[in-house]
């Protein structure tokens, strides 16, 4: 373990208000990210990954709100920060890239200008200087002929190119933390790999920590040092990436790992169906009593149905939230 914690999230709770009642959409989420580390957050749709990221960047909107906990960035409590103070952090110290590169750029503005605006906004550069830096930023994300590309409008670029531009914007001011919310989901597989390499390489060069959010276990396994698995608004297992996929402890993680398609498995073992975890994530307003995974768990007992498991440290390092983790 090297380096100190850059981001510490403790007991984060995000409330969803429905008809005046508040339901915890995210609860008891605690994790920390060191400088330069890549931390993966995995889970099905609707488990609270993306709203956790939005909470970190201070952009939760009605009907969602922070219900408690703490988010410390460089030791500073973000939840106490004024909206203006939070805005200064966004884009300069904490940045984010999204799933849809097709719509994430202003269609009426040349991409160079959009990148340049980051330098004007956060570094106080003048436009001339900023436009020059935009060319360099485009070159860094390996866009060919950047000095010509800066004049292009988003519709003239492919999805992969646009995501590169987004990355250039997000990393323009050398942030300490990059939130990547499914950055490659909308892209071709071959382009995916290039974009992931790029994120990894640039963040390593700048010492930027990355919070990688994905439902793609394979991607997370490749990129991240530590992984948190979320289910129904809770972290249910949190461990080093290499061990979590070899020896998953939580039945949900086991299910996720088992449902990974294996290339060539079919030819080797004959016709075999992909494994699935039956059922769906329960809606926020109707979490089951006891362990939230119990209705879908193959090993659920009466204890699971009655009592909520607590977070337990594992002997080999890591945390799990299950009554029967061993």
């Amino acid at each position, binding site marked *: 373990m090297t380096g100190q914690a850059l981001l510490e999230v403790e007991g984060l709770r995000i409330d969803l208000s429905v008809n005046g009642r508040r339901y915890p959409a995210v609860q008891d989420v605690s994790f920390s990210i060191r400088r330069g580390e890549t931390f993966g957050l995995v889970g099905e749709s609707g488990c609270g990954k993306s709203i956790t990221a939005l909470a970190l*960047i201070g952009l939760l909107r009605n009907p969602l709100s922070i219900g408690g906990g703490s988010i410390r960035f460089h030791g500073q409590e973000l939840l106490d920060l004024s909206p203006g103070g939070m805005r*200064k952090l966004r884009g300069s110290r904490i*940045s984010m890239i999204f799933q849809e590169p097709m719509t994430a*750029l202003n269609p009426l503005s040349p991409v160079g200008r959009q990148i340049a605006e980051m330098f004007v*906004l956060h570094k106080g550069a003048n436009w001339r200087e900023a436009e020059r830096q935009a060319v360099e930023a485009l070159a860094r994300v390996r866009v060919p002929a950047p000095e010509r590309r800066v004049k292009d409008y988003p519709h003239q670029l492919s999805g992969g190119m646009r995501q590169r531009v987004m990355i250039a914007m997000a990393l323009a001011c050398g942030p300490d933390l990059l939130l990547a919310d499914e950055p490659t989901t909308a892209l071709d597989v071959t382009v995916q790999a290039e974009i992931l390499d790029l994120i990894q390489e640039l963040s390593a060069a700048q010492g930027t920590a990355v919070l990688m959010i994905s439902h793609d276990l394979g991607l997370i396994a490749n990129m991240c040092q530590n992984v948190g698995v979320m289910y129904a608004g809770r972290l249910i297992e949190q461990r080093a990436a290499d061990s979590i996929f070899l020896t998953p402890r939580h039945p949900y993680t086991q299910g996720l790992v088992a449902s990974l398609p294996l290339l060539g498995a079919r030819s080797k073992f004959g016709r075999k169906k992909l494994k699935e975890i039956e059922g769906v994530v329960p809606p926020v307003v109707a979490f089951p009593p006891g362990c939230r995974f119990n209705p879908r768990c193959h090993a659920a007992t009466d204890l699971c149905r009655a009592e909520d498991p607590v977070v337990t440290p594992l002997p080999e390092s890591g945390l799990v939230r299950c009554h029967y983790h061993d």
Partner: protein
Amino acid sequence: MKIRANLLIGGFLLATVVIAGTLAPWLAHTDPVMDADLLYAEEPPGAAFWFGTDAQGRDIYSRVLYGARISLTVGIISQLINTVIGVCLGVSAGYWGGWWDDFVSGLTNMMLAIPSLIFALAIMAILNPGLTSLLIALGLTNWSFTCRLARASTLSLKSQGYVQAAKVLGYSDVRIMLTQLLPNMLGPIIVIGTLGMGGAVLAEAALSFLGLGIRPPFPSWGSMLSDARDQITTAPWISIFPGLAIFVTVLGLNLLGDGLRDILDPQSRSRRA
């Protein structure tokens, strides 16, 4: 892109009026106010007086030219005021929502419920007649459509990825409105603005006709029409020419607005294609 007939005709009509207004001192035969000559009162159109003369013997051709200045000034400036008010209120209401949105929407609905000409009449009755009061009266009473349009566009643009991305990258609210929202709704705003200009020209004529706009003897098409009421059967040219001028200007602006809509509004473009 194919240039459409309405754009071409509208542009031509409007350009004629703009040129007539700008070059009025050189094109006019006489001074529109001072050169009254009762010896030549109510002369029909002819070689000396192209559009004839009015009851005071003033050259109607010259007065119509100078009238274009008033109409265009009022049309353009009052509509600019309307557009600025409407866009500011609409965008901020759509973007921030909450009580501000409720307030602005309520105000807009109220403005839409009051006939704007009546409202302008009331303002003119309080202020003294004249160009400045005309601009204020017409500039404050016709922003509701622009406001509604700006608010609706903001609501639909707000959820766009690039607006979200701008927020995440630390843009301030005002910066988002100026760089992300406004440019992307400019097309329809320009269309509404152009069409509104025609309305403002008509409103100016109506107010001046009622004696609450430009004061005689200064030539405004509306006040010229008003003066010509008594001679409409004996000397119809006194009312025909200013009336034609209003018609040409408003038609030009409306055609131009329609033409711009065809170009700028993707929905109507795909409908026609």
